[in-house]
């Protein structure tokens, strides 16, 4: 009988009145003794659930038949339970000591990176592979219609220039070993976004006027188209869409745990670009594509050199800092392309 006694209130779940009781911990049992008539009840641990121990809150014991026990001296009661060998759940134990909590925080950060860098791309890849090509083409058509209704405008390039680019591209595609179905669309966009080309799901490549105007070299334009064709062949856009959907699904589920603003950040980062690996794959495809057409890696290398120059003078807009982006930096890609060019010379 060394275990201390605690004042507590016993409620039956039907009346707010409640009765005052003394609670004692005896091994794996609680003994509740009424303060009014001294009648005692013994409840074994397996027949109850306990609220987690908190610094300033009472501890609540949920008993059978809707009864609850509220122990105001939660901290003292917790010590008495510990002395008798009662244990808390893993989640509670992790939160009771600062070193463990901080370790959990670090682990969360690490997992966040792993989820974003590894698990998500893998799942997205799997989802893209499982999507029938017909559905992918349908999505592409819808996306283009959506973009046309939004910021995209008709191309204002000379018709001859457009035909020339389209003809060269079609010939180059025909020279590929595998059969690739793709279409080229010309559009323009107001503002700095005009310096761009992108692949839609299903193989449609959209080339914007600004890029053609600033890069006057047709070999370089072909290099860019080869790069976008690489994205199309590897179904990167579909994968990317799957990634964004997966990311927003997870963030929505986590919503209550993170503040609203913080929860939006991963989604926002996700929208910035393709993954590092996707860009590398597209670059590799583009180089193979150019070589097949007797050109080699040089036009694409020169294109990135030009992009770098334009970035420095602020013509194509500020990029997000590299740590925010999984996009390989222009320098990194240039370095790889330079190696390709040198290998060709040897």
């Amino acid at each position, binding site marked *: 009988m060394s275990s201390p006694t605690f004042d507590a209130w016993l409620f039956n779940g039907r009346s*707010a009145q409640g009765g005052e009781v003394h609670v004692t911990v005896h091994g794996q049992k609680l003994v509740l003794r009424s303060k009014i008539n001294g009648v005692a009840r013994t409840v074994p641990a397996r027949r109850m659930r306990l609220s987690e121990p908190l610094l300033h*809150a009472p501890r609540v014991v949920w008993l059978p038949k809707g009864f609850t026990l509220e122990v105001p001296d939660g901290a003292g009661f917790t010590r008495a339970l510990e002395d008798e060998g009662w244990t808390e759940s893993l989640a509670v134990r992790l939160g009771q000591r600062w070193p463990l909590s*901080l370790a959990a925080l670090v682990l*969360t950060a690490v997992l966040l990176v792993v989820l974003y860098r590894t698990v998500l791309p893998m799942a997205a890849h799997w989802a893209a592979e499982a999507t029938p090509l017909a559905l992918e083409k349908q999505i592409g058509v819808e996306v283009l219609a959506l973009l046309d209704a939004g910021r995209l405008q008709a191309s204002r390039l000379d018709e001859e220039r457009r035909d020339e680019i389209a003809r060269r591209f079609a010939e180059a595609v025909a020279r590929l070993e595998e059969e690739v179905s793709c279409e080229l669309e010309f559009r323009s966009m107001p503002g700095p976004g005009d310096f761009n080309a992108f692949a839609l799901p299903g193989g449609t490549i959209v080339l914007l006027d600004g890029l053609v105007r600033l890069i006057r070299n047709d070999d370089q334009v072909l290099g860019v188209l080869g790069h976008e064709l690489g994205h199309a062949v590897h179904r990167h856009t579909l994968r990317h869409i799957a990634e964004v959907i997966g990311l927003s699904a997870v963030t929505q589920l986590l919503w209550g745990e993170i503040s609203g603003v913080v929860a939006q950040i991963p989604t926002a980062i996700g929208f910035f670009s393709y993954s590092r690996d996707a860009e590398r794959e597209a670059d590799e495809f583009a180089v193979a594509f150019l070589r097949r057409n007797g050109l080699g890696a040089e036009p694409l290398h020169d294109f990135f050199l030009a992009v770098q120059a334009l970035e420095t003078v602020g013509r194509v807009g*500020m990029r997000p800092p590299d740590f925010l982006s999984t996009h390989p930096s222009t320098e990194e890609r240039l370095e790889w392309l330079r190696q390709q060019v040198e290998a060709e010379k040897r």
Partner: protein
Amino acid sequence: MLAPRAMEGEACTAQRAPSRWEARLEFTGDGAEYFRIWVVNLLFSFVTLGIYSAWAKARKTRYFWLNTRLEGFAFDYHGNPGAILRGRLVALVLLAAYTWTFQLSVAAGVVTICLLCALGPWLFMKAQQFKLRSTSYRGVRFEFDADIPAAYKTILPVLLVWFSTTILSVAFDESAPFMIALGIGVLLSYPWMHHTLKRYQHSRAGFGGRTFRITPDLVGFYGVYLLGFLLFLLVGVLAGLMSGILITAVASSTGVDPRHSRLLGSLVGGFLALSVYTFVWPYMAARLQKIVWESTRWGDTRFRNEIAFKPLAGVVLRNVVLTLLTLGLYWPFAAVALARYRVESLVVVSKDSLGTVTQEIAAPGTGVTGEGAADLFGLDIGL
């Protein structure tokens, strides 16, 4: 030992017998303690790809309720995580449908909206029921009168007004004069919608066999929204000016054309949103909560809400600044600070101590989905 205490109690009651009994809600939560709970919840939620978040939500809600006390007794939360998870999945599907179907086809979008209108009132009702039945005080669960016809009668009109522009934009040009007028009409009915939902929530709630009654002042709601809108304009202009000055400074020092920078654009957007949250939201929340609580009755019991704009804005400003400075790590401390101010603003005013509610009441225990649904849609506006 028992007798003197009982007498003491009686003496106290006797002294104040003709007047009234008042009790302020107390909040005993601790930022550092909740931080550790939050971290573990976050870790487990990530490891389980979001599935544990339902358990985390139950644990978090219980933390805040167990630390809320009235007359020395804590509130308690009994939400079943399985039900919360189901509710969240339903909400996720509906939200995804609402976000994506219109981009796929107009017909699919219209079907989704019809589905939302058909299910919405029921979901909202179930969400309220789940929330109240999961909360208890002195062992007694709160109740919610889940009357289906009443739910549809009250909430369906709100949903129809809410979606009216979207529905009609399918058939008519969005720039038609009457569509613009309709859009303005929908904006003007925001206070009415909020008022309707609040009245529904409070007037259907009950405790110990007695229902709550509420007579919130609709004109008061309109007044708060009008002043809130003016404050919104003021804050918008000031924040816009400030970011304009900052951008010019950044542009001239780095040589980057700000119009070309998406990052800078989203930073400015974030700054504007945070300014509105810091200065406009506290005003609206404080005033509306005061109106709602001070017109709520439970039997002879009234509520006095001492929540006010300035102290609330102080708490929010501090929370926003520290959360930004700590890259979000202050968030759990912020949640505790905000809860402390909001909870401790509320005073229960009655003729008699709440402990005298002795009526025997049935406590029907049911597991319900739908709580998560209201959570995700943000329908649960302001306490």
